[in-house]
């Protein structure tokens, strides 16, 4: 499974409680749409760290890296490419 599909399914299953992919657009803001709160974001970060074996540094915890499926996927791919 591609990181994009995997991250999307993680968010759908853990925050929206559905398998329906149409419930979340790839560029939906996780914060503005009320999908994650502070603990939800922590869970997402922990999931990324465990699943992809990468470390999310403090200064990487910004909306540009984490606020949508597109942003999270691009962030993971950048980190894995390093």
């Amino acid at each position, binding site marked *: 499974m591609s990181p994009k599909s995997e991250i999307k399914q993680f968010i759908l*299953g853990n925050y*929206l*409680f*559905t398998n329906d992919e149409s419930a979340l657009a790839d560029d939906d803001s996780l*914060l503005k749409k*009320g999908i*994650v*709160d*502070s*603990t939800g*974001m*922590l869970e997402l970060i922990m999931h990324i760290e465990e699943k992809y074996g990468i470390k999310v540094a*403090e*200064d990487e*915890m*910004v*909306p540009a890296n*984490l606020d949508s499926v597109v942003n999270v996927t691009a962030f993971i791919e950048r980190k894995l490419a390093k």
Partner: protein
Amino acid sequence: MSATLVANLRSTAGRTPDQVALVQGERVVTYGTLWDMARRFAGGLRASGLAAGDRLALGLENSAEYVAAYYGTLLAGGIVVPLNVAAKARDFEFWLRHCAASWVVCSAENRELLAAAASTRVVTTAGVAPGGIAFADVAGEFEEATAPDAHAAACILYTSGTTGSPKGVLLSQHNIASNTDAIVTYLGLTAADSIVCVLPFYYSYGNSVLHTHVKVGATIVLDDNLVYPHKVVANIARSRATGFAGVPSTFSLLLGRVTLGDFDLSSLRYLTQAGGAMSVATTQKLREALPQAQLFVMYGQTEASARLTYLPPADLDRKLGSVGVALPGIELETRLESGERCAALQTGTVWVRGPNVMRGYWNNPEASATALQGGWLNTGDVGHLDADGFLFLAGRRSDMIKTGAHRVHPKDVEEVIEELAEVAEVAVVGVNDEMLGQAIKAFVVPKSAGGVDVMRVKAHCRQRLANYKIPKYVDLVGSLPKTASGKVRRHELVERHSE
């Protein structure tokens, strides 16, 4: 004459009109501007026919508009009803109906609240809702005829959702202003202070942060939330804030995810912690991470405007685990079931009396009569006083769950899960959670052997409840443990979780 909140804002704006009251991103609002905004809003309400005692439901995020609408409503003689903006239509409908609100102020993007506000006048920020009025258009000249009655009803804060006994805590300006004065004194707040505020103003803790800073003319730097915790810390460093207020989960999050030593936090003079017991380990870590900041552990409840006790920082080591002593002007005692006063170290229910204690619950004489007896408030909290008068809390008599900064009544969640046809019975409890203090857990008894889809339970909760009320855990069980009279043994369920 008793102090009022509006007199505090008027006085601060008159004394230091150019002092910064609020900073929100790039937006900077002075006390002079804030006072003008509040007067304009009050004038607009009066011109539109708001009568003394009319209820205005305030469903805005922290912002200058929130503060202007809050103080403007009080100026105009109305009663302000701050609402949790994260709630769903189901809660909003109930609250608006229960307080018979004639006005609603909210963001044009808050669809849940707008859906519930069909029969009220609607004022919106961030655009105009169909049939609504833009916030900026609620404007008029305000002439103050007589000073408002400090003891009149001024604010209703709902502490529970739709289920059970509606509890809208009714406070006067005198209640809140007297508590404000006491807090200002023990924190030593002055106009030189500034705080980065992540607490919502619609809860009593955030509400007290707002009023104390307005009182002394200090600055409040608004920060969205803790989703990106290191940005909050960067904001404290950048704005050279002198204070920071949090609940236990706030501090766990900051300590767990941010290397505080990487930031220059030397400006931080004090921290306040309320909203439930913080573990001794977290308290110690916090003090080690920020040794220059005095830590004030505090306890209170909405029914007491906000604060009842505080632990002077100098006593923190000596009285670790205590929530401190009663604020000046507040009497506090612990009582046995019989009503008799407890001896030192004897555990009982905490009762308090003071100028900050609510007038009662809005439109709920039975609950008011239970909580208020002979001028004393039964807090429902259980604990003991030591020989020096320091209070140590041991828990609550009620089943209310404290999760993060929120309070959740189990029945609120149970009622929603019971709406599902495949559910026979459900019981909801709070279980220990490292980050949140308590997390919500639902024990669900399926109606038939076909079972219940856990994901569907959570999805249904998400549709009907604010996100923080969605159970973190859902367990399917064959039956619920009950007493002979049929009451669910919640303690047994909590114990079952920790096994």
